[in-house]
């Protein structure tokens, strides 16, 4: 059985396969921030960060970190040839205006109609929404990369989100450690399943109703023993 940390990387590696050469991409925090490590050879993506930078380069060594050259997670980053800086208004115009090809985000829940809940947990005072709502409304493709269930084992793919929404009907793809689902004409379709899990178990872990692609792709997600 992979560890929690290995599962995060398994999800990120599969989410990276959803990106196309030339895509301008915004990566969210958490699992999505790992995606850039797994972009396949021959695919070059162009990273955007909403605090006002396009062509975000890799993290610097600690002694080269510049507190005024950061990404939206406030982590130090670097410039690449062709990096540009712009104000936050232009940065969000890029999102809402449909100029960002794809975003990979985490989520707390995704509904069977593509609603996304990713920012607030009831019962907790959450005083931060950041750019998540603009990003999922604006990006051309919204790839949700998340664990299939909560830490308590509750399904995160649900008929209707019970947590506060980030946006309605904006999810395009959901990648978990067990499976890949796509939204086609507003309907949730299972397109790929890991060879470590059977369909009955997947259904038990998925509260949302879904259709199945024929033939369903079965892939190996993990070289070791999952159980």
């Amino acid at each position, binding site marked *: 059985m992979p560890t929690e940390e290995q599962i995060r990387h398994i999800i990120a590696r599969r989410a990276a396969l959803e990106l196309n050469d030339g895509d301008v991409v915004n990566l969210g925090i958490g699992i999505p921030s790992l995606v850039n490590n797994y972009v396949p050879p021959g695919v070059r993506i162009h990273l955007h960060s909403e605090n*006002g930078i396009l062509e975000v380069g890799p993290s610097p060594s600690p002694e080269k970190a510049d507190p005024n050259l950061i990404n939206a997670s406030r982590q130090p980053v670097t410039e690449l040839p062709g990096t540009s800086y712009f*104000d936050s208004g232009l*940065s969000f115009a890029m999102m*809402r205006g449909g100029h960002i090809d794809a975003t990979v985000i985490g989520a707390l829940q995704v509904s069977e109609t593509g*609603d996304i809940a990713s920012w607030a947990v009831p019962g907790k005072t959450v005083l931060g*929404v950041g750019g998540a*709502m603009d990003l999922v409304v604006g990006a051309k493709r919204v790839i949700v990369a998340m664990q299939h269930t909560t830490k308590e084992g509750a399904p995160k793919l649900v008929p209707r989100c019970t947590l506060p929404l980030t*946006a*309605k009907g904006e999810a395009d793809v959901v990648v978990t450690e067990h499976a890949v689902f796509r939204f086609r004409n507003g309907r949730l379709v299972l397109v790929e399943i890991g060879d470590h899990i059977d369909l009955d178990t997947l259904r038990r872990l998925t509260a949302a109703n879904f259709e199945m692609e024929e033939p369903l792709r079965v892939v190996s997600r993990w070289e070791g023993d999952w159980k």
Partner: protein
Amino acid sequence: MPAKFETPREAVRRIRSGATVMVGGFGLSGVPVKLVDALLETPVGDLTVISNNIGTPGGGLGKWLRAGKIKKAIGSYFTTNPDVGRAYLEGKLEVQLMPQGTFCEAIRAGGSGIAAFYTPTAAGTDLAAGKEVREFDGKLYVLERALRADVALIKAYKADELGNLVYYKTARNFNPLMAMAADLTIAEVDEVVPAGALDPECIVTPHVFVDIVVTG
């Protein structure tokens, strides 16, 4: 009119209790820290602060919060300072949370003579509650009002003698927008250069938006 040059202490004397103040910065990058510190030494309080974040515990605008100077915070992400949540729960601070893109656009609109605008962001979510929603071309949009302030405190990299500004890397963030959207804009810069020393093609904030420039 070209900008005036003052010290931070002189400049913040223009801020009155009860004022609405925009403050630039994303996290602690691009925050005008000298102006923030200078205001801390004045008796001014009861402020409505429009800023993406309220600093960190005791850092940046977190200092104003600890000093009890903030009545209301308008921004998108206050989670990085647990003091904000605490003050909110104790009823000592009003909070208005906005999606970050809506926040930017509201400031840009405020500086551009636009009263309100429709954005697709937040349609169907709690943050659109009570707001007018209208359908355009089959998609739902939320009506959002522009934001303006009495004073904007911004951080730039260099100013020339007229008050034209250039910025440094991702410290730019909200600063050029806030420069446009206040009755009085005070820019803190690292360096002042002669007029003509900044490449005209590279000036980000033309001096019409800047009233006062402060350095160290």
